[in-house]
C-alpha cells in the first residue's frame, strides 16, 4: 500500500511527462516497441533516400537543355540500360527491406520465460482485465487499467465479447485484434517505469473514440503491493456518507451491472468497480477519477459518452453525493 501511495504522489509529474508521448510509437518504453522504432526509422530513411533520388532524376530531366537532346537508337539503348539498372536496384532494396522485416518479426516472436498473464476482454466500450495466477484465490478481475512490473515478460491474452476491438499500446508493442470466436495474444516487456496509454484501434461503434486505458509500469515491489491491494476486498465505509453511498449502490440499479467484491453487488455487464477509487481514470480513459467526476458521470453518462450502455439512474442530490463518496473510497 505504501508503494502505491508513493507512486500516486508522483503521478502528476508522470502525467505531465506523458503528455503527447504516452501513446506514441516513437517513444518506446519496452524492448519490442524499441525494435519497432528502429524498423520504422530504417524504412523511413531508405524510403526517403529513394524519394529524393527519384525527384533528383525528375528535376534534372526537366531542367536540362532539351535543344541538344541526343535522339536515335543510341540514346534509347542507354535509357533502356538505365531503366534496367534502376529496376534491379529497386529489387535489391525491396529484398533488403523484406529481410529486415522478417528479422524484426523473429525478434518480436521470441517470448520470455515465466510471463505474467493478463486476460483482456474488449466490450463496447471498455476493457475487462483478469490477472491470472496459478492459485485461483490470487486471480482477480479489474477494468480499464493495467499495472505491469518492469522487466518481466507480459503476455496479454485477448478476447472480445461483442464486436472486433484492437489492443494498441504503441509505446510497448504493435497492435493485436480482439476477435469474437478467436483467441489472440500479445507479448511484450516494459523497460521504463511510467504511465502509458492504450487505445482501441479497430472501429467498434459509437464510442470507439473513448475506449482507452492506462498502463502503469512500475518496479516489481510496487507492482506486488498493488496486486495484493487489488486481491483484497475494499475497505469498509469509514463514515456515514460512504455507508449511505454503499446502500445506494447495492439498493439501486448499479448493482445489476457492476460488482464490488464483499458486497451483494455482483453484476457483470459493466466494469468491476471493486477498487475503482484506486484507478486513475473512469469511463475507459475518459475522466480522471475524482469524487466530482464520478458524480458527473453517474448523473449523466449519456452526455459525457453518448451511446454507451450505462443508463441514467435517477438519484437525489444527496444520494448522488454519497454514492460518489463511496466509490471514490474504493481504493
Amino acid at each position: 500500500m505504501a508503494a502505491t501511495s508513493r507512486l500516486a504522489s508522483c503521478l502528476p509529474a508522470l502525467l505531465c511527462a506523458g503528455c503527447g508521448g504516452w501513446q506514441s510509437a516513437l517513444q518506446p518504453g519496452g524492448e519490442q516497441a524499441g525494435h519497432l522504432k528502429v524498423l520504422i526509422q530504417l524504412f523511413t530513411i531508405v524510403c526517403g533516400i529513394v524519394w529524393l533520388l527519384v525527384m533528383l532524376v525528375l528535376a534534372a530531366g526537366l531542367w536540362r537543355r532539351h535543344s541538344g537532346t541526343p535522339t536515335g537508337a543510341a540514346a534509347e539503348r542507354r535509357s533502356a540500360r538505365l531503366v534496367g539498372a534502376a529496376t534491379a536496384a529497386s529489387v535489391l532494396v525491396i529484398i533488403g527491406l523484406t529481410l529486415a522485416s522478417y528479422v524484426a518479426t523473429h525478434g518480436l516472436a521470441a517470448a520470455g520465460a515465466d510471463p505474467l498473464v493478463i486476460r483482456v476482454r474488449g466490450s463496447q466500450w471498455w476493457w475487462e482485465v483478469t490477472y491470472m495466477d496459478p492459485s485461483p484465490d490470487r486471480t482477480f478481475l479489474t477494468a480499464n487499467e493495467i499495472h505491469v512490473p518492469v522487466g518481466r515478460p507480459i503476455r496479454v491474452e485477448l478476447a472480445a465479447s461483442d464486436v472486433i476491438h484492437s489492443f494498441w499500446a504503441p509505446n510497448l508493442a504493435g497492435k493485436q485484434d480482439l476477435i469474437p470466436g478467436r483467441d489472440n495474444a500479445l507479448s511484450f516487456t516494459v523497460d521504463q517505469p511510467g504511465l502509458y496509454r492504450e487505445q482501441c484501434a479497430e472501429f467498434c461503434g459509437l464510442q470507439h473514440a473513448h475506449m482507452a486505458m492506462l498502463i502503469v509500469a512500475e518496479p516489481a515491489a510496487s507492482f506486488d503491493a498493488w496486486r495484493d491491494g487489488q486481491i483484497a476486498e475494499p475497505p469498509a465505509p469509514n463514515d456515514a456518507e460512504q455507508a449511505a453511498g454503499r446502500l445506494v449502490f447495492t439498493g439501486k440499479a448499479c448493482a445489476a451491472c457492476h460488482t464490488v467484491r464483499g458486497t451483494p453487488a455482483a453484476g457483470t455487464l459493466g466494469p468491476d468497480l471493486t477498487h475503482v477509487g484506486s484507478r486513475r481514470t473512469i469511463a475507459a480513459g475518459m475522466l480522471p477519477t475524482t469524487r466530482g467526476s464520478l458524480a458527473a458521470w453517474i448523473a449523466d453518462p449519456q452526455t459525457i459518452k453518448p451511446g454507451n450502455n450505462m443508463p441514467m439512474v435517477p438519484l437525489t442530490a444527496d444520494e448522488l453525493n454519497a454514492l460518489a463518496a463511496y466509490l471514490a473510497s474504493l481504493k
Partner: protein
Amino acid sequence: MSPDSLPPDIRDTDLAPDVLEPELERTWRTPRGLIGALSTVDHKIIGRRYLVTAFIFLAMGGVLAMLMRLQLARPENRVLPPDLYDQVFTMHGANMMFLFAVPVMEAVAVYLVPLMVGTRNVAFPRLNAFSYWMYLAGGFTLWTAFALDMGPDVGWFAYVPLSGPEYGSGKRADIWAQMITFTEVSAMAVAVEIVVTVLKQRAPGMSLDRIPLFVWSMLVTSFLIIMAMPAIMVASTSLILDRLVGTHFFNPAEGGDVLLWQHLFWFFGHPEVYIVFLPAVGMVSTIIATFTRRPTFGYLALVMALIATGILAFGLWVHHMFATGLPRLGESFFTASSMSIAIPAGVQIFCWLATLWLGRPVYRTPLLFVLAFFVTFVIGGLTGVMVASVPLDTQVHDTYFVVAHFHYVLIGGAVFPLLGAIYYWYPKIVGRMMSERLGRWVVGLLAIGFNLTFFPMHLLGLHGMTRRVYTYQVEMGWGGLNLFVSLSAVLLACGFALFFFDAIRSSWIGEPAGDDPWGGPTLEWSTTSPPPPYNFRHIPIVRSGQPLWDDTETLTVAAGLRVDRRELVVSSVAEALPEAREASPANSIWPLWAAIASTVMLISSIFSPWAVVWGAVPIAVALIGWFWPKGTPEDEA
C-alpha cells in the same frame, strides 16, 4: 452474315462524302426529346453522364471530408455527434470508392476506348445504358438514406459483427450492402463491355502492340474488376442474408466465421486500389507522350508492368489483416508479395522518367498534373512499402499514418492524373478548351493543399492517433497538428472548387478546340470535337502505335460498312485483322425499365426476402422487352 445477299444494303463506298455523313448521322443519332435521352445507347452520351455524375459524387464526398475536418479541428469538439460522424466517415469512404473512384475511371473508358480503338460504339451498348442507370440508382439510394438519417455507419469496410444482425441497428448496414450490389453490377457490366470492345472491335491493323497505353490499362483494369468484384458481392449478399433471413455466415456462435468477411472484403478491396490506380497509369503514359512529343519509352515494359500489377494485386489482400493474428508464415509471404508490387510500379516510374529525359516537355496543365503526381504518388508508394512489413504495420495499421498513405496513393496517384486527363480530353468531349491560366492555379492549390493536409497525418499516426475516432482528448497532444490539417484542407477544397468552376465556365466560354488541339498521336484526335454520333466517317486502318504522328498524310480507311443500319467492324484478337461486319444495337428504352425493375427489387429486398420472388417478375418482363426482336435493320444480323 452473308454480306451481299441483303437488298437495301447501302454501303459507305456507294455514297459521296456529303451524302454519307447525313446518312450516318441519321442511323446513329440520338433522337431529340426526353424519350430519346432516356433510350440512347451512344457511348459518348452515356460516358458524359457517367463523368458528370461521378464528379458530383466527388464534390459531395468532399463536403463530407470537410465536415470531418471541422469536427477534428479541435479536441473534444461537439460539432458532429458520434452517430452522425460515423455516418459521415462511412459515407465519405463508400461514396469515394464505389460512387466516384471506380465509376469515374470507367466513365473515361466508356467515352474514350471506342474512339481510341477506332470503332463506333462499345460492345453491348444497351448493357452500357443499363449500367449507368444502375449506378445512378445505387448512388441515389445511398444518399437518400443518408438524408433520412439512415446512412450506413459501419465504415466503408462494414466489418462483422459490427455490421451484423446483432450490432448493426436499423437498415443502415443493409443500405450499404445493397449499394454495393448496384455499383458492382454496373461496374462489372462496363468491365465486360470494355474487354470485348478492346479485344474484338479494334480498327483493322491495331495489333496488340499498337494499342494505346490507356486502352491497355483499361483492359487490365476491366479484368481486375471481373475477378475482384464477385468476392464483395458474395460478401455483401451473405451479410444481407445474415441480417434478413438469419443465416450465420459470419456468426462464430453458429459455426460462422468473423474473419471470413475480412478475407472476402479485402480479396476485393486490395485489387480495388489497382482498379483505381491502373487507369491513372494509362492516363499518365498518354499525357507524357503527347507533351514530350515522343512515344512513351518502354511500351512493352509498361504493358508488362500493368499486367504484373494486375496479377500481383490478387496476392496481397492479407496485408490489411496483419493485426488479426494470422499464422506468421502466411504473414511473411504476404509481406514479400506486398513489397514485390513496388517493382512493376518502379518500372512504370522509370519508363516515364526516361520519356521525360528523351523528349521535349511542353508544360501545359495536363503535364503539370503529372509532375504533381510524381511528387505525391512516389511518397504514397513508399509508405506502401512500409505498411507491407508485418511488424511495422502493427504500429501504423488503423492509424492516421494509413489514412495519409492511401490518400497519397488515391489522390496523388489517381485523382491528379485523372484531373490531368480531364484537362487533356475535355476539348475532345466538349469541343472547347479549359483555361490554361486557371488550370495552373488548380494544380498549384491541389498539390500544395494536398501535401499540407495529408503529410502531417503520417506524424499523427505515429504519435498514436487512431482512425475513425469522432474526437480525441486534449491531453493527447494532437490538437495542433489536427488544426493545421483542417486549415490546409480548406486550401485543398479551394483547389477542387476552382477546378469545378473552370470545368463549368469553359463549357460556355472556353476557346473552341478544333479536332486536335494538343497534337495527340491516337485515333480520338482524328475526328471532330465533340465527335459525331458515328465517331468516324470511315473506320481508320492503323499502321503504327502513334497513327496520327506516323501517318503524316491522311489515315487510310476501311470501307464497305452499311450505312442504313448500325454496323461496325469485328476484328481478330491479336492482329486486329478484320473478320466480319457486325450489327450494333439501336437505341432502346428497355435498359431503363430493366434498371427500374432491378432497383425496385433490390431496395424492397432490404425489407422483405419475398421481394426477390415478386420482384423477379417485372425484371423478367423488362428483359423480354429488351431482347424482343423489333424488326429494325439491326435485328437482321
